[in-house]
């Protein structure tokens, strides 16, 4: 408990950085993921194949490697990005790959009859996606997307490997200076759990709201 008091400023900063990493990467990842999904279901073979390759690469390699490539590898090519933006870039690309699969599952889960009803009334493709398919796909995808958000929140601890002072790094710091690793690590573990509990509650509220039309 005294650790909490002594290191409160550090912990708060770490908490803010962790939440920022998670939320910003999730939002950007959703946008990129949606684009990847649209490419994956498009009529163009080139787009479909590129999107599939993207998903395969970013799902098939360790997140830690991706983060380190952005922070330690890219400078060799003349691209230098500060630690936090580096981490956000890697988290965004990584979660976009997973989220695009969640979105795709959502779209495939929409009944074929919905597309046919829209087609039979001459609704254009994009409008069908936007007005008819996406709203239903989002509802189907929400549980999986929520899990992805929670997983991402925990994955942000890997940013500590590229010198980002987020919660995990703060815990390490407290441990090194006080040798009370156990308490420090348990404390930040609890904080992660707290954040994710809030996320899960948020997800439940959202799911309940979206279910209203269907009940």
């Amino acid at each position, binding site marked *: 408990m005294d650790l909490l008091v002594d290191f409160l400023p550090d912990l708060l900063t770490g908490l803010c950085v962790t939440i920022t990493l998670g939320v910003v990467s999730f939002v950007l990842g959703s946008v990129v993921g949606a684009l990847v999904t649209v490419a994956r279901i498009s009529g163009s073979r080139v787009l479909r194949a590129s999107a599939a390759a993207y998903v395969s690469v970013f799902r098939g390699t360790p997140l830690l490697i991706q983060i380190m490539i952005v922070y330690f590898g890219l400078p060799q090519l003349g691209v230098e990005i500060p630690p936090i933006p580096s981490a956000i870039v890697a988290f965004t690309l990584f979660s976009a790959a997973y989220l695009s699969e969640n979105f795709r599952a959502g779209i495939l889960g929409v*009944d074929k*009859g*919905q597309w*046919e*009803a829209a*087609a*039979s*009334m*001459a*609704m*254009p493709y994009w*409008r069908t996606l936007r*007005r*008819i398919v996406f*709203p*239903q796909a989002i*509802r189907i995808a929400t549980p999986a997307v929520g899990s992805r958000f929670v997983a991402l929140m925990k994955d942000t601890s890997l940013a500590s490997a590229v010198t980002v002072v987020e919660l995990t790094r703060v815990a390490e710091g407290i441990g090194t200076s006080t040798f009370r690793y156990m308490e420090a690590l348990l404390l930040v573990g609890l904080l992660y759990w707290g954040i994710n509990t809030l996320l899960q509650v948020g997800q439940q509220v959202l799911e309940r709201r979206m279910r209203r*039309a*269907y*009940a």
Partner: protein
Amino acid sequence: MIVSVRDLHKRFGDLEVLKGVDLDVERGEVVVVMGPSGSGKTTLIRCLNLLEVPDAGTVRICGHELTKRSAREVRRRTAMVFQQFNLFPHMTALQNVMEGPLSVRRVPRAQAEPQARELLARVGLADKCDCYPAKLSGGQKQRVAIARALAMKPEVILFDEPTSALDPELHAEVLQVMRELAREGMTMVVVTHETAFAREVADRVVFMDGGTVISQGPPSSFFTDPDHPRVRAFLRLVAS
């Protein structure tokens, strides 16, 4: 001629579903398509708005030859009522009916909404405007679907087994709405097993079997004096 089909062929893999179908529908005509399951009725009606792409033959709707390129133009002039309703579940009944006018016909909302309410009233659902489909019975859903079809101001409505997914006691309310449409002069192509409806409302009954039209004629002669043994066998089966 509002619908004109010539020598239509369609196969799914090894299964040849349509083996050269000809069909004409005149403006204001109600054509009922009957036949045993697997005879190609549903495939035929789905070819009329290109939900199925035929392998060979031509479909002309209101003078337009139906191709992938002209599909949207043709679909603007037709509407379809599906066996499974296919209402948009995230929209209320009113929003379902307004969607076509807003999205496709570009009618301003201030105009689309009263029109949609009027259409829902016409199918007897004035009090269900704000209900989501999940809250409606099958018969009510299908009536919303008919209102949604009418909102497109189609020149012909295609009904694909509109009562087949309904409990028997709900058939009547849907058929009643269709009967009124027919009386008002709507051009309709109806795939159905409802012989009573065909007898009473159809101008012409088309009988399909094995992927071709094997008999057609006005219901008076079709039902009382069937010219083809397959029709006789089918009618006996349906009647029993």
